[in-house]
Structure formats: structure tokens, C-alpha cells
């Protein structure tokens, strides 16, 4: 399980957090799997691992908000790029900012549906498991999300909208 999927989980986490945090999330995800081995599906364990990784990240970020408030706020104001010495994902190229900014304007469930299909490359059945819904419901969700993303990209191209959209991705947790 580890050898087959550690890289998948690491990439999943690195797409949603900085590289350093991603390694922590991946390790904790597999620790949870080890401690709950009976709960990990024998066939197709990847969606289970993704859900667990997502929950690990949510738990950690919740606690991060609660503690070290001063540092957390300073960090947020300073932006991800100003965190001294911290390894993070590569700075997005200018062209990529547009689509990432547009993605960030969608509801959280839509964002995740698109990431699962386009970045994690899961098919609808597997992605539905990772999203915690039926395959039919996921299909509807991802189609809707694609339309919304296209609309957001169009909106971004209109004067006055781009600035607002870009601000949504200025800070990455």
C-alpha cells in the first residue's frame, strides 16, 4: 500500500499545501491507514487515502488557526512567498495564475471535484468515492464545476474582474 500509493498521496497533499506540509500530511495519512488497516478498502484504496489526507489537512489547519495567532496573521499578511526559508510549490507561472484564480472562486466541493479529476486523474467512480458522494452525483457536480470554471475564466477576462479574482489566491495555506 505504501510503496504503491505514498507518491500519490504526497502529490495530492503538495497540490493543496506547501511541500514541507505535504510530507507531514502524507506521513500522517499512512499512519492513520496503518492504525485503521481494517478500514482501508482492499480494492481501490486511493480514494480512502485522499479523504484521509484531506481530513488530516483540515484538522491541522484548524489547529493552526487557533494557535500562534500573531504569527499566523503575520504569515497570512506577508503571503506565502515571504515565508523565510520555507520550501513551497513552485511559484505559478503568470499564465497559470488565471486558471488557479478562477478555480479559487468556485465552491469548495466544485474545486475538489475538478482537482480530483484533472490533477489526481481519477475516473468518476474513484473520484466520487474520494468526494464522498455517489458516482451519479459526482458526475453532475464535475460537469457543473467545469461550466463554472469556464464562466470564471471568461469573467476574469472582463475589465475590473481580474484583480478581484487574483486576490483569492494571494495566500495559500
Amino acid at each position, binding site marked *: 500500500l*505504501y510503496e504503491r500509493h*505514498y*507518491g500519490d498521496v504526497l502529490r495530492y497533499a*503538495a497540490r493543496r*499545501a506547501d511541500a514541507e506540509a505535504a510530507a*507531514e500530511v502524507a*506521513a500522517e495519512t*499512512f499512519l492513520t491507514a496503518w*492504525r485503521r*488497516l481494517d478500514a482501508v*478498502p482492499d480494492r481501490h484504496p486511493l*480514494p480512502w487515502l485522499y*479523504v*484521509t489526507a*484531506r481530513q488530516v*489537512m*483540515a*484538522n*491541522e*489547519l*484548524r*489547529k493552526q*488557526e*487557533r*494557535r*500562534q*495567532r*500573531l*504569527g499566523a*496573521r*503575520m504569515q*497570512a*499578511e*506577508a*503571503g506565502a512567498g515571504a*515565508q*523565510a*526559508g*520555507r520550501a513551497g510549490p513552485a511559484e505559478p507561472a503568470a499564465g*497559470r495564475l488565471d*486558471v488557479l484564480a478562477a*478555480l479559487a472562486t468556485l465552491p*469548495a*466541493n466544485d*474545486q*475538489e471535484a*475538478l*482537482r480530483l479529476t*484533472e*490533477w489526481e486523474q481519477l475516473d468518476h467512480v474513484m473520484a466520487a468515492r474520494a468526494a*464522498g*458522494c455517489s458516482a451519479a452525483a459526482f458526475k453532475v457536480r464535475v460537469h457543473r464545476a467545469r461550466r463554472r*470554471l*469556464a*464562466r470564471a475564466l*471568461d469573467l476574469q477576462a472582463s475589465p475590473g474582474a481580474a484583480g478581484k479574482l487574483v*486576490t*483569492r489566491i*494571494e*495566500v495559500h495555506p
Partner: protein
Amino acid sequence: VKTTTTTARQLLREGNPVPGDAFPDAARDPDGRAVLTAILAATPQAATPQAAGRPAIRNWKVVVPAGAMTAALAGLLAVMLSASGGSQPVVAGQPSGFVFASLIADRTVHPTADREDAAAVLRQLAAAAARQPAVPLGPVEYAQVKSWGLDLNRPLQYDLSYVSHETSTSWGWMAPDGSSMGYYTVPGGRYQPGTIPLQKGAPTALSRARFAWYDPARLPADIAALRRHLIAGAPTAFPGGTGAGSGSGAVMCDDKGCHPLPVPTADPAPDPVTNAIVSNALDLMTREPLPPAVRASLLRVLADSAAQGRANAHFIDMGTVTDRAGHAGVAIGYQAPDISGPPDTRSHLEVLVFDPATGALLGDEDAYCTNRAGSYPAAGSCTPEGYDQVLQVKAVQAIPAAPKLPPVPRWTPTTPGLTAAPQASPPAGPTPQLSAHAVSNP
């Protein structure tokens, strides 16, 4: 030309920040093998609310660092693993000259206290706050805070003091245009001890919006409006809090159907409204020069929450205490279910220490407790995990020039001899007592 869904998909794939072929041998490289070894050393066991917590993560943490750091860390871990719940655990091999913090309010417990006591104390504090003279509110906010934290339970946030038994002090400035500057001493952990990371933030639309939420001159004094403001919280880049797919993680479906997600979650869950009120009120009181009427209203919002007695959100009158800086204070505990602390943790306790004469927040500390939320934490049942001691909060005229600091050497798992590393020089400027290696237990 309208964007088609096909074009949008293609753009999104090209925007993937981590390509699918990244980390090709992650599971087999030395770091990956070290993580696996540590995970396998943990005991696999059936899920129980306690067992599904996070004690074993500490095992692999031990593997990652090297040399002297591993020894020091192992000592700290042993404390947490063997003596969770002890207020002043003693550990073989522990460096002499320090002990772990005990919960500041442990010595003044009065178990008969009920929520009405806490509400009454908060109302008294509100009355005291309302009597205070007005203070300048801007244009720039400045806060100096001394912090201590074990950070054993926040693997994403241990760059400050992961292995530290020492305190860190931070200095921060925020301006209305959204710009900011801050630096803090680092006793250990992710950076070489004694280094002083500097953070500078340029004005952005988001940082301006965030400043507006905190702006003491614009905070409502009306209690209902202030309560709404606290519940709403400061704007973030990711509405919904986490940006990590929030909202769909509670259930998981597999070949056999859908089941509750078997990852650490507290059952029962904390009350989100009260959590937001406490957390955001604390945030404001820790770092903002507040008008007396606003401070009084903040305390009244907390008092109302205490009196409401919502399920899984408990306020406790913890009596009089002496805070970490030696000031006389009164302590109010906020306790909610949380199993993410050391073994046997059942609740999280936030202890807010106030100056009874002014209603000002002196500091706060958080601890994980073995008692369930709603039952009074007996002395020794809580393991303190960190605290913030407010040293100074005031308005200043401008953000000072950034001090010249040496580059921050970052710790990595392969960095040997962390504690023997050369230490950074303190910056010039308005930072008194920037000793490179602050000492002793808080």
C-alpha cells in the same frame, strides 16, 4: 470568445502545481523509508475514539531528526507519552534547569464553579474595561507577544518551536494599507536556534480587507453586531476555512457503501459558533489596541456565550492566578471536545487570563485534558501545550524600517548538529532583549 469546458479543463491541467510524475521514488528514497519504518513501529490497532488520536505520529517524528536533536526530542516525547496529564512531569535524561509548564490555573481550581460563575466574572471584567480611558488606535498596530509551545500536535506548524522548552518573542506591525512587518526569535525547531525570521507583507486587496476586519476603529461596540463580526471572522483566501476540500470529508464511500470517516475527530464535536467567538475575540484582544467600549462588548459577548451553556462549549471560572509574567489575573477556561492532543485527550482547554482591574487580556494558554468537556479539569489532568503572553499592544505612527538580518538557515532532516550551529546576530532597531537563545521554561 467564450471559454469552453474543454479549454477550461486543459488550462486546469496545465495549471497543476505538482505534475503527475513528481516524486517518482518518494516511497523508496531515504526519507520515505524512514517514514515507513516509523509508521510500522507504531502499533496498528482497532479504532476507538482515543486510539484514533495521534500519539503514534510522535514515533516517526523521532526518526526524522538526527543526532543531538533526536536525543532531545526523544526526551520531550517521552514526557508527553509517559506523563500526559501530569502537570510537571519529570523525565530521565531531561536537561537540568527546566521543567515543563504546568497549567497556570491548576493551583486555584474550585470544582464547584458553574457556567454562571464564568459569565459573572466576564461581566465584571466588562464593567472594568468600560471604565478605562480611551487609547490611540492607529494608524499602525503594534504587538509584542511572548510565546511558548510544545507543538507536538501540529506537524504543519512546528517551524516556530517544535522541540522547544524555550520561549519565543514576536514583534509585529500592521498598517491600514495592508502592509505588515514582523520578526520573531526562534529557540529551535525548523530553524537554527537564535535565528530571527523576518516577514514583510506588501499591501494587497486581501491584506487590506483583513486589516479592515481587525481595525479597532471600525469594530462595532454594539453587542449583537460584534457577535456577528466575531462569528464571520476575518476574510481569508479560502472561504470555508481550510481550502482543503472542506465540507465533504465526514463520510467516505467504498465498495461496501458509505461510512463515517475513520480519522481523528472528536465526538461530540465542538460548537463551531462558540469556537469562532472565542477564537476571534481572543485574536482581537491579543493584538489590538481596543476602545474601552469595544473591549467591554467583547467581554459581554463572551459572558453571554458562557451563560448560554451551549452543548460542548463550556466556560469555567478558574479563579485567580499569577500569569507567566508575574501579574495577578483572573482565569476563564473555555473547554471543548478535542481528541487530537496527547494520549487519552478528551478535551481542549483554552485558559484566558485577564487583568481584573482593566479587563485587558494578559495572555492565554491552551492545554489538552483527559477529562471530558463539561467536567471540571482536576489539577494535573491537563497537559499545557502552549501559551501567548501579551507583552505590549499599542498604536504607533509607522512601521519601522526592517532590520538587517542574516539569511535564515533552515533546518532539514539531514542537518546534523542543530544545537551546535552558529547563532544569528540580533537585529539592530527597536527590539530590546533579543537574546539569541532565550532560556528556561516559561
